[in-house]
């Protein structure tokens, strides 16, 4: 798979670190809501289809970014601006 780094261009997936579902809303820092943190940390939509996700270009610019990928085909449709 080739990942389009918004800063360095298209690179081999092995240059990146995967960061999981980016559509999850991280609970506010210090919210104290155990349920919210449980759901955020441990449960996943895990869709078979379109997925927005975090990647970091660890062997490049070290920037984190989000992109849209279809988990059924691995087709990448673009970086989330």
């Amino acid at each position, binding site marked *: 798979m*080739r990942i389009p780094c918004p800063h360095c261009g298209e690179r081999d997936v092995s240059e990146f670190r995967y*960061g999981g579902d*980016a559509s999850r809303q991280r609970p506010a*820092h210090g919210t104290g809501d155990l349920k919210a943190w449980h759901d955020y*940390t441990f449960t996943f939509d895990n869709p078979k289809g379109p997925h927005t996700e975090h990647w970091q270009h660890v062997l490049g610019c070290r920037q*984190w970014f989000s992109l849209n990928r279809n988990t059924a085909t691995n087709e990448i449709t673009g970086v989330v601006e």
Partner: protein
Amino acid sequence: MTAFKRLDTGGRIDRSRTLTFTYDGQRLFGQVGDTLASALLANGKMVVGRSFKYHRPRGFLSAGIEEANGLFTIGEGNRAEPNIPGTMVPLVDGLVARSQNAWPSPAFDLMAVNSLAAPLFGAGFYYKTFMGPFKKSWMFYEPFIRKAAGMGKADAAKDGARHDVEYGFCDVLVVGSGPAGLAAALAAGRAGAKVILAEQDAEPGGSLLSESGDTLERWRAATLAELQALANVTLLVRATAQGIYDGNQVVVSQHLANGQLLHVVRARTIILATGALERPLVFSNNDRPGVMLASALRSYLNRFALAPAARAVIATNNDSAYATAFALAEAGVAVTIAEERAVPAGDLLAQAAALGIAIFPNAGIADTLGGNTLKAVRLKGRHSVTIECDVLAMSGGWNPAVHLTSHGGIRPRYDEAIAAFVPGGFADGQFGAGAMLGHFGLLAAVRDGEGAARSALTRCGISKMPAAVEPPAVRDDRAYGIAVAADPFAVTVPGKAFVDFQHDVTAKDIKVAHQEGYHSVEHLKRYTTLGMATDQGKTSNVNALAMMAALRGLTPAEAGTTTFRPPFSPLTVGALAGRSVGRHFRPTRRSPLHDWNAKNGCTFIEAGPWMRAWYYDWAGATPQEAYVKEMELVRKGVGLADVSTLGKIDVQGPDAAEFLNRVYVNGFAKLPVGKARYGVMLNDDGLVLDDGTTSRISDTQFYMTTTTAQAGEVMSWLEYLLQCHWTDLKVHVSSLTDEWGGMAVSGPDSRKALQLAFPDAEVSTEALPYMGVKDISFGGTTVRILRLSFSGELAYEVHCPANFVTALWEHILKAAAPLGIKPYGLEALASLRIEKGHVAGLELDHRNSLDDLGLGKMAAKEKPYIGKELRLRENMQAPERWSLVGLELMEPEKKLRGGSILFAATDEIKGHGRGYITSVTWSTELGKFIALGLYNGGLRHEGEEITAAFPLKNEQVKLKIVSPHFIDKEGARLHA
């Protein structure tokens, strides 16, 4: 008399250059241009192997990559490779080939007694027996089965060849250099695209190499010449496209003289011109040496100048084999055609008649006769005649080589017209051309190739279109015109009729699988092992699938096909691994002091990617001896240890303090400038991520340290928080792990050592109290002195830019020499921290909570921090959780071991116990073995005597639970 004779003229071999090679110890000769297969045939070697299960004699079935029978071990010693098809090995001088799976030889194999028991060994026989008489009976039978399985033998020595990986990028990758591929490459090349043309054969040309006549050869040569003149075109030979991966990355494995080169090609577009593979016919004893594919015979004749000695029979259900028949007749061979169809095309009949070829219509092969090699064939149907022959060539139609198209998940589609599977579609950026599309015929291939190139150019955004590719001036462009007979897949054949030659799967086996309900194509394969041999079912899959479909009363289209998976042909593990093996397996990480250590009596140990200083030989010859001496040095005098491997992070920005305050469980907002603080960070799940000491350099700048192991994780985590979530915080983080190196100066004399080393610096306890930090300018650089202690002694860490670490280290050793300072290593470092009760990697194992490690009190009550919420989950606060304790050995004559399981004195010694030992050391202070461990309820049991069990060595010892701070509980030494 041999079945084949070498012709005096023709072919692509160089008769003036003779090569010597060895086959099963026998010295034989061949010509430049031969393959091992053609050379063996020229030497009269018809039986070249034995089949897998029944050990039936086998000869070459093909002349190409689909070869199922003629497998050899090629090379000797550390270059020997088993299971290589002789059809793909270009003959070179000195080649050494050995036959396989036969003893003493392929021609006379004692294992052939297996054939006698053949009725027992039908499909899936092993699932039905060997269950008894006892529970584990398979353990008795398995060794016998295993010994019989397998073809060649693996050689245990390290690979003597060299393999490398090269990354390639191109606009158009053309796979296959037959007429379609050549036309495609030429068109794309003329347009200026960056083209790579990959050909698996040693010579480009594909099917053109097996044809006769000058016209085609002239076209081939001219096309190649033009391609070679184009700087933007790269031609790779002996280079097989093995797989297409996501993002149109193609693995092309290329054989070089001294090993393999794996091209990992990122192609913007791919043109597949992979041709087609001929299908065998399924009839009784169709595996007898002397029976081969019609296309193979044409190849042996036209390319390798090998003709059957006198007589050949061609069995076919389609037109394509007539070319072989005509070429044979022209070479003076007596040819008979057994035509399965009722009425072959008129022009073929006329041409055959003109060449004196006898044709039997409606006449399949009933059986073959002979011993180890073919002597005659008996036709079926009303003819039922027996015809003596040297060779039987068969053609059951053609399978387009669709493999690569389905690597991306697109299933092939069945095309009734040619009774074969064609590509079910193409992934974005991929195109097909020629026979692989089921378009048979030379001109069609050239047209296709050129068209595919134009599509590819458009896809690449190249608007310049090339000049048209001039096709070869051939008159007759016969599309192979497959007209399939009524029962092309011969479901009902008597005798041993092989479908998968190498795995000995017969038509009957397929019937058995059907009877037992293994109907799906995958069940069929898995139950009969069809297509699982080294030829990957290239000649067998479609025949078998179609037979199963017929048995189920379905069309092949309804029954479906199996999935083709990479690699296209067997590919060595070494070729894929490339150079990242052995000492280059993973990069070695070295401290700035590595060279000094290497020269000064240090023994290293691998710690993750790092090579770390384990112990020094001044202290002893073994680690057990040395670490104790090194510990004593630190406890009584002063020692110097390399701590450069610690993760170090520069945290800068106006919000740096707020950021750290969120990340660490304890407060960092109010840390004064010039002070360090020990901090612990959690993951969102509330488990401990890492610990370390972080110093405040200025209002807006912090110097963070992490554990060696977690440095990379922590760095990415901080970047993630800042870049994905806390984008409003003005903080910038940079790794300093490589920029800064450091050393621990530890022991009661450490202050004196610093005073000797840095006479101008004020390091008194007033000027630099415990957890104080100061930067000094020294020796032309910045030196950062941090008063920290991992050992529990009065100690400092001295950091500076890595370029100067060795010089600084040498300076301190020299300056403090009067104090007897010496270096100490990782083993002592780790033991000293156990005595002090500091947790490290063995305790920070991502299973433990803050409280488990006895650090719960550090957590801020009010302030939020990452992991706070989930840290407070029910079970993570349970009083019976295992938490950190110190342990003292009560039986001095016994040994204490890491990984021991802990029990209360009255417990029965079984089950999970109440905890375990993480780290053990000899305590120089206490004169006994001590340990850190986790124990149910932790220090609530302080003072209790417990048992540590190590059943792996049948050991049990008595321990006492004590505080993990074995020394200096009050911290007097730290603050001295």
